[in-house]
């Protein structure tokens, strides 16, 4: 029997490998912190409701790093993603429900695409083991469709254009604790999927270029959308989408070049770790700030600078190392597109910096809610901040030591700094901007085109419903009743004279036939 037949529970295998380890650490850390945070900040009456979804989601979110075969991976992916609906809709507001619906729809599509890809890979590899899958698909005639399915699935997970709204939607209405896990860990499963499933160095260059271009476009456009959105959480969501665009660039690199793949993988891991922690810290920070008053609030706002700077990629932060690793990876490719991407990469930091400024402003404006003791939240937040500060120095050396070394060079520090400075300058300049420009503030609701799409679907549904109703009425009205005509025909046919004449005609017919 081939190993790809369904074998129920026996087909699930879990193991820890080199790729999984950093993710396991990241996921376990973030889900634990956010669980504690959520427990502390959720009113006792609502805890059961929240954790009914939180626990399975966390279980899936952590074990996905351990999944050793296609089915376990799919299971963990689903286990994390589907219950997250309950976290997003926890607030029970109409917006939260709508966000949940859109999220779940996209999740369902993403799961379907992933399953399709996994099935093809399993068939081509005649195995379920993850390490074998990516290798086997590289030489399969179904390679292109499989990679397309994978990219689409991962793209939905990490909020690539045009689904850039999915991350803001899933953070905005979620309680802070849960949101930090979603922000920090959930999208990183997409990064893990890139490492586990995408074949390295087998695709034509055009594929790679298209993916890289898409990644860059996401990075820039999400930043622009984010600066125009409404809440700090939404800003963070778009920031995540933007950063995930950069991860996609790294994935694009690995697709076509086997030599650059280790560099790209290093960049993906680095980005995941760095971004996961920093984003988690920012999400929690927003909530922590709102719980504080006075001097503590000011201190907290100041502390927000650490993860913010890390995201921008300021020197000596984790973001700096991650970005450097990415640059290295892109640099390993030659051609117009990689070179253009390479040139554009620093410019993405301007967008990130602008987002961080926007986030900072919005967070500062938040009104304080002081009814819960902030002690536990602050303590947990501090832990995450500490991790943000330290993680870069626990870098697994064999990935890309060059990145760490270059973090200490002055020239590269300048490269990292100027985009941030431009953003600050731009922000300052904005004060003197015409009123019309300022009105753009907050015109992008979290979810952007997805909201429009959802509205369109609802409208189509209403239209269909209306049409089928009116259609039914006309159909009934127009049905002609032939019964009276049939009855009348029979009545005249059985009337004596007509009927007996018919019979005589029948007789004549038979006689005529027989005497031919």
């Amino acid at each position: 029997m081939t190993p790809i037949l369904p074998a129920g529970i026996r087909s699930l295998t879990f193991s820890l490998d080199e790729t999984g380890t950093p993710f396991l650490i990241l996921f376990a850390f973030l889900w634990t912190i956010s669980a504690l945070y959520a427990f502390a900040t959720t009113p006792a009456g609502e805890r059961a409701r929240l954790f009914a979804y939180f626990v399975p989601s966390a279980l899936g979110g952590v074990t996905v790093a351990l999944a050793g075969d296609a089915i376990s991976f799919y299971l963990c992916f689903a286990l994390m993603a589907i219950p997250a609906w309950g976290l997003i809709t926890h607030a029970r507001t109409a917006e939260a429900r709508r966000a949940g619906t859109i999220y779940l729809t996209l999740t369902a599509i993403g799961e379907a695409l992933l399953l399709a890809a996994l099935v093809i890979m399993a068939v081509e590899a005649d195995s379920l083991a993850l390490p074998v899958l990516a290798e086997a698909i590289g030489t399969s005639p179904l390679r292109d469709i499989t990679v397309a399915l994978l990219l689409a699935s991962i793209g939905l997970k990490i909020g690539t254009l045009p689904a850039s709204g999915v991350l803001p939607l899933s953070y905005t209405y979620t309680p802070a604790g849960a949101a930090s896990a979603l922000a920090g860990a959930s999208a990183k499963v997409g990064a893990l999927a890139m490492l586990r499933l995408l074949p390295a160095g087998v695709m034509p260059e055009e594929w790679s270029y298209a993916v890289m271009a898409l990644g860059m476009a996401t990075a820039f456009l999400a930043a622009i959308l984010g600066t125009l959105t409404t809440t700090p959480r939404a800003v963070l969501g778009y920031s995540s989408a933007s950063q995930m665009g950069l991860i996609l660039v790294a994935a694009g690199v690995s697709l076509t070049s086997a030599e650059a793949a280790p560099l790209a993988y290093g960049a993906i891991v680095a980005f995941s770790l760095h971004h996961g922690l920093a984003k988690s810290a920012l999400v929690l920070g927003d909530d922590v700030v709102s719980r504080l008053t006075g001097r503590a609030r000011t201190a907290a706002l100041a502390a927000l600078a650490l993860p913010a700077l890390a995201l921008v990629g300021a020197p000596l932060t984790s973001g700096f190392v991650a970005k450097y690793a990415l640059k290295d990876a892109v640099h390993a490719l030659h051609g117009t597109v990689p070179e253009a991407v390479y040139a554009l990469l620093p410019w993405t930091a301007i967008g990130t910096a602008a987002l961080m400024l926007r986030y900072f402003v919005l967070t500062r404006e938040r009104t304080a809610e002081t009814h819960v003791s902030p002690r536990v939240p602050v303590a947990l937040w501090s832990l995450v901040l500490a991790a943000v500060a330290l993680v870069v120095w626990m870098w697994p050396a064999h990935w890309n030591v060059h990145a760490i070394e270059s973090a200490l060079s002055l020239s590269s520090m300048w490269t990292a700094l100027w985009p941030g400075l431009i953003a600050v300058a731009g922000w300052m300049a904005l004060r003197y901007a015409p009123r019309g420009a300022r009105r753009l503030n907050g015109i992008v609701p979290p979810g952007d085109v997805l909201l429009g799409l959802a509205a369109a679907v609802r409208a189509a549904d209403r239209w269909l419903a209306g049409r089928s109703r009116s259609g039914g009425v006309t159909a009934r009205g127009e049905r002609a009743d032939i019964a009276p005509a049939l009855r009348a025909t029979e009545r005249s046919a059985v009337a004596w004279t007509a009927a007996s004449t018919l019979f005589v005609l029948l007789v004549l017919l038979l006689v005529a036939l027989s005497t031919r």
Partner: protein
Amino acid sequence: MTAWLPMLIPAIAGIATFALGESRGRARNAVNLTAAAMSMALVARLVVHAYNGTVVASTIPMLPGLELGMSADLLGLLFAAVATVLWGVTLVYAIGYMDHAADRARFFGFFALCIAAANGVALADDPLSLFIFYEILSLTTYPLVVHTGTPEALAAGRKYLFYALGGGAALLVGVAWLATIAGQTPFTPGGALTTVSGRTAELRVIFALMVAGFGVKAALMPLHGWLPGAMVAPAPVSSLLHAVAVVKAGVFGIIRLVNELYGPDLATSLGVATPLAILAAVSIIVASVIALRQDDFKRRLAYSTIAQLSYITLGTALCSPLAAAGALAHLAHHAVMKITMFFTAGSVYETLHVKKVSQMPGLARRMPLTMASFAVAAFALAGIPPLVGFASKWMLGVGSTQGGSVWALLVYVSSGALALGYMVPILTSALREGDHAPARGAESDPRMLWPIVTVGVLTVVLGLTAGLPGSPVHWAMTAIAPSFGGWTP
């Protein structure tokens, strides 16, 4: 003789139920439950025989040159086992559900006759015998559909009957035509028409006629119109219609037709398999999309059934061994999942008079065990591992890919996404705050609750144990293998 018993035992129980009359409820329940237990034991014995390679069979002369035959092969036994086991579960449920209803003798009598006919369909050894039991099934189901006697039920019954009889007419012509050109053609794994395989034009028309016949019960679009309407029947009947006997008789007919009458090779070379596959694929997608838009709980489930049945048809029509086995396994798996759902629908209606998804808020707290079972079944239906639906969906997907039909795989996964789309809103609606206060005592009649929990647990257990010898997955592969020339997975 033994081969006739799975059909005869329920038939006798049905007649006995009529004879006992309305007033002797205890005796009626005892007769039916005993018959169910006996049938289960008998089917189990036959399964053991069949696994060991002994197929119990028997024939009696019927029409000139044609015999009525029953044969307890693994393929048929799978369907018979589904019908028999779920009959037992449904009986308990129905006894609870129909506790205060009128005309129970009629209800349980026809119920047993339905199962008898389903078992007849399952074990029928040739097209004629299958056709006969198929038509009996149509007839014995009709009184159940119109059981309540309301104008709505009668209208639905009329619709059901016209679809069923129309399909039966097509099937009759197909079977008779085949008999005139090929004589007695007992089902043979891999195909029974080798002697007449040259008459391609006729064989194509016959195939189309038979598909039209089976397609009605299999609710293959556009022959599905009766199914949503038939939802007016009492819940145990809906369960029977949708999960156990009736619709499965249709897809089972298609399985027999493709694998054991024409055979995958002939069906492929005649070019009849692909159109069937496309029809099924369209049904899957269209029915799933329609299901998204239904507020009526049972109607939504009905459209889901239409989609899921076409899973089986599609898997069979792909003529790829693993897909065919997956289709057969899905026949059993879908039965377990869908019966959980219809039990739930019946239970919430009978307990709280909830009929629509939009009336469900608060239900999760009012009937937690029921809704939890439903949730498990719903996720199983959407194909979440390691639940039961995933196993067959995986097989179907892998089989499609192996057969070179990646498009079918995409249809399957899209339908999985759509299944989440129409199932989850039921759960989310039930999870909302709402009018239904938590129950003080039991959440519903225990005779309804425990069957639900049992089948709910079964969706998990069968999923976890998928692939073990005796599980539907293993069983289906063993039963399908001979049709593909001794293919081993």
